[in-house]
């Protein structure tokens, strides 16, 4: 039987893993979103409203919240097409802050006072969703669509020249990423059974991006490694007391200096698979 402490940590990893995957999907088309906490917030509030006020089962509420966030993601994705790089990152950051400010003033869902009444969800349920979304990403990585996404990521003009619909690919990635972030939010709300707008601020978006960059931004499994490290490292460094967050920062910088592509990448994954096959 897992202790409550570790169950809490693993739940956090699962939720962060989902958030990181939401960034990974968008990043796969060459777009950096710093606003995924906004989509997570939308998912958290919509799912909570549906389970608490409408008495919908959680799974149905999560699916509905993912659909709502996907539609909003597509709407955000279209103007985002005109922006690239740092400008897109700042614009999505702005979107995240708009969502947070909206929730802060949305009294129907508690406003600054937050919202509660959700039923606690099990660790297994969180990881079932994380596993399911990860499986979908692994399948996506082996599909034709993934080649299209990589082409758009690498060179949009070249992708255009081979007849790819780059608009559809990029907007679709935004919608899918938003849906995954919303599921992460719905699970967060039902794990902590209380949410407030501050849960879905800029720092949360940075955590998602950091998990992907640290774990490896070129393979889906990197999001899992990054999420686990981001949650567990500060815990393992507790013996450093007040210095633990500084040490955590130093470790992050060291890892990124030695492995710019993140801890996991395709060659390392292939090597691990080869070893496993040999043994």
């Amino acid at each position, binding site marked *: 039987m897992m202790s409550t402490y570790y169950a809490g940590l693993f739940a956090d990893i699962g939720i962060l893993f989902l958030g990181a995957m939401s960034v990974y999907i968008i990043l796969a088309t060459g777009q950096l979103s710093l606003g995924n906490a906004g989509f997570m917030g939308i998912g958290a509030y919509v799912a909570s409203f549906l389970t608490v006020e409408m008495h919908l089962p959680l799974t149905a509420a999560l699916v509905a919240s993912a659909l709502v966030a996907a539609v909003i993601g597509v709407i955000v994705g279209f103007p985002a097409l005109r922006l690239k790089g740092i400008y897109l990152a700042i614009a999505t950051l702005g979107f995240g802050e708009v969502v947070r400010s909206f929730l802060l003033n949305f009294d129907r869902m508690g406003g600054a006072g937050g919202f509660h009444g959700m039923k606690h969800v099990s660790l297994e349920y969180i990881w079932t969703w994380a596993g399911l979304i990860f499986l979908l990403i692994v399948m996506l990585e082996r599909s034709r669509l993934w080649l299209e996404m990589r082409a758009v990521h690498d060179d949009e003009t070249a992708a255009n*020249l081979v007849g*790819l619909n780059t608009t559809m690919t990029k907007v679709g990635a935004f919608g899918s990423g938003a849906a995954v972030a919303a599921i992460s939010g719905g699970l967060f709300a039902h794990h902590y059974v209380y949410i407030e707008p501050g849960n879905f601020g800029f720092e949360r978006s940075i955590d998602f991006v950091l998990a992907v960059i640290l774990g490896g931004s070129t393979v889906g499994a990197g999001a899992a490694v990054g999420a686990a490290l981001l949650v567990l490292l500060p815990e393992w460094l507790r013996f450093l007391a007040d210095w633990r967050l500084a040490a955590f920062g130093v470790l992050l910088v060291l890892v990124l200096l030695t492995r710019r592509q993140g801890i996991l990448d395709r060659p390392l994954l292939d090597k691990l698979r080869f070893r496993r096959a040999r043994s």
Partner: protein
Amino acid sequence: MILTVRGLEVFYGPIRAVRCIDLDIEAGEIVALIGANGAGKTTTVRAIAGLAPFLGAITYNGKSLTPNSAEHNLRAGISLVPEGRGILGRMTVEDNLNLGTYCRKDQAQAAKDIDGMFERFPILRERRHSLASLLSGGEQQMLAIARALLSRPRLLLLDEPSLGLAPKTTVAVFELISSLRRDGLTVLLVEQKARQTLKIADRAYLLETGRVVTSGSAAELANDSLMTQAFLGGTPSHETGAP
């Protein structure tokens, strides 16, 4: 006519990069656009490929093309090999070729056509699992042309295919372009290497600062004073008596 261009104008902000260009291309021809840097050659072919907004009329196979419609134009049979080749360097040779068939519905035939490309370019078969960025300049150009051919174009736009290539490789690329005519393909070739271009082209247009300054058959242009002064480094052959 497979392609007619009338009054083509392309602006980059306030700058008029192409000024009222007219072109006519017959099916099966190799037509060259020759000009110095900044003459508007690349902008013209980008507009035809659907990658740039334009004013004026571009008619392909009797149908008007609209600006910024690259995907539609490709499906209609216009394929561009851009300046710099436009290959996806972080993908393998095979993935690049696979992408060339994405606009096609007949995927079974497309797979056979990829094998056909490997027959035509054996070096690509040898290096099919290599990253495209690791190929030499000439091999990358072969890959770019092979990928464009896999979309089964009727009109192939080639933008400075010899750029950055060694002289020997340039000759091989020009031979390859010449061989495309035998496949019944129409080629619009943008080049600065006028002498070699005129050897394989049927007709050519000379562009300067966004305008066509002269045009005609390749043989005529080889003796045109504007062309010889600007690109061929001498006087027309009829004045010197050279063949």
